[in-house]
């Protein structure tokens, strides 16, 4: 420990300590959760009941159940009653199968809704092996604190920690150094942190660390969506730290380890043999998507106006590959051979408080490249890497940052904003320098950054009330729903994906459904009923990963060689069977693929009802901004004139003599009507009323007919 770190440690003031019996993980569970209240420094253990496991499974499910019991319908995100809950899930922590180290974070979001966010790194599994299925943090501290969990000695502390930095890349290094007994011990430490930007904006995210042994540095993965980092800093949490040494292949206490081994061997071989022919995740991670989205006209360009750009070639994966250090074991949990967490080493920063320093940047995922890059009309890979670094260390969600800057840029070019309002920033599309300066302002809570950091939803109101913007225009182009900024795909030509984004619990994040190819390219779901079935199955299937501590990428970013010959190749049936084997192998249960969906249905519907409790969760909140559904402006229409003209002709319009404005209006009427019909079909398939509320029959069937649930939804039947 260096002198500087010692000084930081000496400045800690112990506020509370709880010693606990070290337990054992049995069949994926420790059967207890850790509750912490920062207002009165309570630390206590709560039991996990069989009902919790049966109905909520783990991960997101546990988070939702614990939060439901902690808040009322009037609780706001910055009330002390709000909680942050982190949990992995019964399968989380196994080492035999790729992608089994995820944590799920649940909280009331500054967006207004009940938020869940998933993240890699080591925290969730090490928390479990330290003795806890979840950590639940309520209340607010008076001064910055660190919560430290020692999973080998069996104690938890709350300590005031005034001297450590707040920015994650420094904080995580300091705390890893502080709590490790040796260089070798560093791999046993995992940290949750945010950054200065999470204090100064509503789009703060959480960084979850894992120690990269080969590089000798801590690395960061992100629970990006939904502003939970802002909640974290509002509670004056500087960091959560867990230390556990001794991870082994049976640390998760599986009932039948051989099932895990068998499934793992199959997938490792598949990745080894086929990844380089398929998505090249081991070489470039999700960055492989940039050129594909550009080719298919799905890459967001200039606030989702367009789907491709000639300069997008500068952001292709072959460009980023030159920055990613190759041949490194880039998995974010043990045993992941998909190894897609790429990094740029020795990157010299050109701007900001760390200008001139060489850093390791956890960059770049597709969402960040598209969000900070093409969506802002910026096609400079080094800008993307630097912006990625600062978003990470400041604790800013790169998706929300990119989408909100894109919105600002369009408003600037439309004359709603000007240099007087932006404090001199020339925020036209493509101006990387101005965008970078805006990120620093957001991080520091100064200048126009204070307004930008509020997010698109709040900016719409401000731009109307204070700068005279046309409310219809900003509503149409402001790509947010339920308070959450859209992630980075152009859904305009895919009705199924419009629903995939808008009919979500948390808001327009693509983790529930990514149906663009199935709908737009393969044309496999032509009817409303087909789309409704897809918008039932895939959100339910994908929810399951978040109950169990799993990453979705090994499900369908690699496929078996014979997958095309199966009945339903989109589901990747062999991998579904792998997941069933993993669950049964860990828990000793004997679920089927139907029961897998049922597990998700329970939690999914519960989350929908939770949103209802918080004042959302009905049809009016499922209606997206028109930019996600079709061309708002004449220039957008004309960029795809042939496609749109053909559609108007197909639906019976004689477009001869129609102006483009008239065609925009006609197409809009048709598409908005189509979307309403989609809602009808989806609600019916999901077992909801025509207003989007789960029916009494549905909640009874699922076994979530708790008295307070029934009382709430009865008013909406």
């Amino acid at each position, binding site marked *: 420990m260096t002198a500087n770190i010692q000084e930081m440690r000496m400045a800690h003031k112990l506020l509370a300590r709880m010693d606990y019996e070290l337990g054992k993980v049995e069949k994926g569970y420790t059967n207890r959760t850790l509750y912490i209240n920062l207002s009165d420094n309570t630390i206590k253990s709560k039991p996990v009941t069989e009902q919790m496991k049966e109905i909520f499974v783990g991960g997101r499910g546990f988070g939702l159940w614990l939060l439901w019991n902690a808040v009322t319908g009037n609780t706001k995100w910055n009330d002390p009653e709000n909680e942050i809950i982190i949990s992995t899930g019964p399968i989380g922590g196994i080492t035999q199968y790729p992608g089994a180290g995820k944590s799920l974070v649940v909280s009331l979001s500054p967006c207004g809704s009940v938020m869940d966010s998933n993240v890699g790194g080591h925290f969730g599994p090490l928390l479990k092996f330290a003795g806890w299925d979840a950590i639940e943090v309520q209340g607010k501290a008076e001064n910055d604190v660190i919560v430290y969990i020692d999973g080998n000695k069996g104690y938890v502390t709350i300590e005031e920690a005034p001297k450590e930095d707040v920015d994650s890349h420094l904080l995580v290094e300091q705390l890893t150094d502080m709590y490790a007994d040796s260089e070798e011990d560093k791999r046993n430490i995992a940290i949750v942190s945010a950054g200065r930007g999470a204090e100064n904006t509503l789009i703060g995210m959480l960084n979850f660390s894992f120690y990269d042994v080969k590089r000798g540095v801590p690395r960061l993965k992100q629970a990006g969506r939904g502003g939970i980092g802002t909640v974290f800093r509002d509670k004056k949490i500087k960091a959560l730290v867990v230390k556990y040494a001794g991870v082994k292949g049976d640390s998760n206490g599986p009932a039948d380890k051989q099932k895990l081994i068998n499934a793992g061997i199959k997938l490792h071989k598949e990745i080894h043999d086929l990844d380089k022919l398929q998505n090249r995740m081991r070489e470039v991670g999700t960055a492989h998507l940039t050129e594909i989205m550009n080719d298919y006209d799905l890459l967001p360009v200039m606030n989702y106006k367009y789907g491709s750009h000639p300069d997008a070639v500068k952001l292709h994966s072959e460009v980023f590959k030159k920055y990613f250090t190759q041949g490194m074991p880039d998995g974010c949990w043990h045993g992941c051979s998909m190894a897609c967490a790429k990094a740029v080493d020795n990157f010299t920063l050109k701007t900001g408080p760390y200008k001139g320093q060489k850093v390791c940047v956890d960059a770049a995922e597709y969402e960040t490249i598209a969000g900070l890059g093409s969506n802002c009309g910026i096609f400079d890979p080094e800008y993307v890497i630097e912006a990625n670094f600062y978003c990470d260390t400041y604790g800013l969600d790169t998706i929300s940052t990119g989408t909100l800057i894109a919105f600002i840029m369009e408003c600037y070019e439309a004359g709603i904003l000007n240099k007087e309002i932006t404090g001199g920033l020339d925020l036209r599309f493509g101006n990387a320098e101005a965008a970078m300066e805006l990120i620093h302002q957001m991080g520091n809570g100064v200048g126009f950054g204070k307004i930008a950091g509020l997010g698109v939803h709040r900016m719409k109101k401000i731009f109307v009330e204070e700068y005279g913007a046309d409310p219809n225009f900003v509503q149409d182009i402001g790509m947010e729903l339920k308070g959450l900024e859209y992630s980075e795909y152009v859904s305009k030509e895919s009705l199924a994906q419009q629903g995939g984004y808008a009919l979500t619990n948390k808001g327009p994040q693509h983790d529930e459904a990514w149906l663009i*190819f199935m709908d737009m390219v393969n044309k496999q779901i032509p009817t409303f009923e087909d789309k409704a079935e897809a918008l039932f199955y895939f959100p339910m299937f994908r929810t399951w990963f978040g109950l169990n501590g799993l990453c979705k990428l090994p499900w369908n*970013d690699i496929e078996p060689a014979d997958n095309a010959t199966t009945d339903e190749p989109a589901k990747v049936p062999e991998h579904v069977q792998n997941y069933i084997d993993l669950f049964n192998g860990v828990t000793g249960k004997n679920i089927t693929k139907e029961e897998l969906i049922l597990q998700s249905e329970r939690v999914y519907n519960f989350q929908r009802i939770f949103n209802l409790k918080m004042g959302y969760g009905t049809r009016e909140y499922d209606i997206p901004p028109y930019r996600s559904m079709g061309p708002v402006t004449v220039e957008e229409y004309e960029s795809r004139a042939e496609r749109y003209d053909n559609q108007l002709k197909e639906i019976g319009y004689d477009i001869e003599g129609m102006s483009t404005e008239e065609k925009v209006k006609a197409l809009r009427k048709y598409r908005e009507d189509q979307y309403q019909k989609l809602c009808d079909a989806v609600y019916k398939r999901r077992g909801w009323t025509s207003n989007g509320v789960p029916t009494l029959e549905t909640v009874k069937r699922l076994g979530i007919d708790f008295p307070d649930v029934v009382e709430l939804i009865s008013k909406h039947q």
Partner: protein
Amino acid sequence: MIKVNKEAMEYKEGITVQDVLNEKKYTFRLITVVVNGKIVPRDEYSSYKINDGDNIDVIHIMSGG
């Protein structure tokens, strides 16, 4: 005329599966090509000749980031 993913496309004498993929800019790697109900192996894309009137499905597996 041929059909590719249910859309009409002009037929050119001698075109192969790969030519069709290039024309449609179907660059995604996780695809399966089915011509008249029969799967075409990946290593035959450059040699498999398409006939006038053929019905081609290029199935993309979903992915997404």
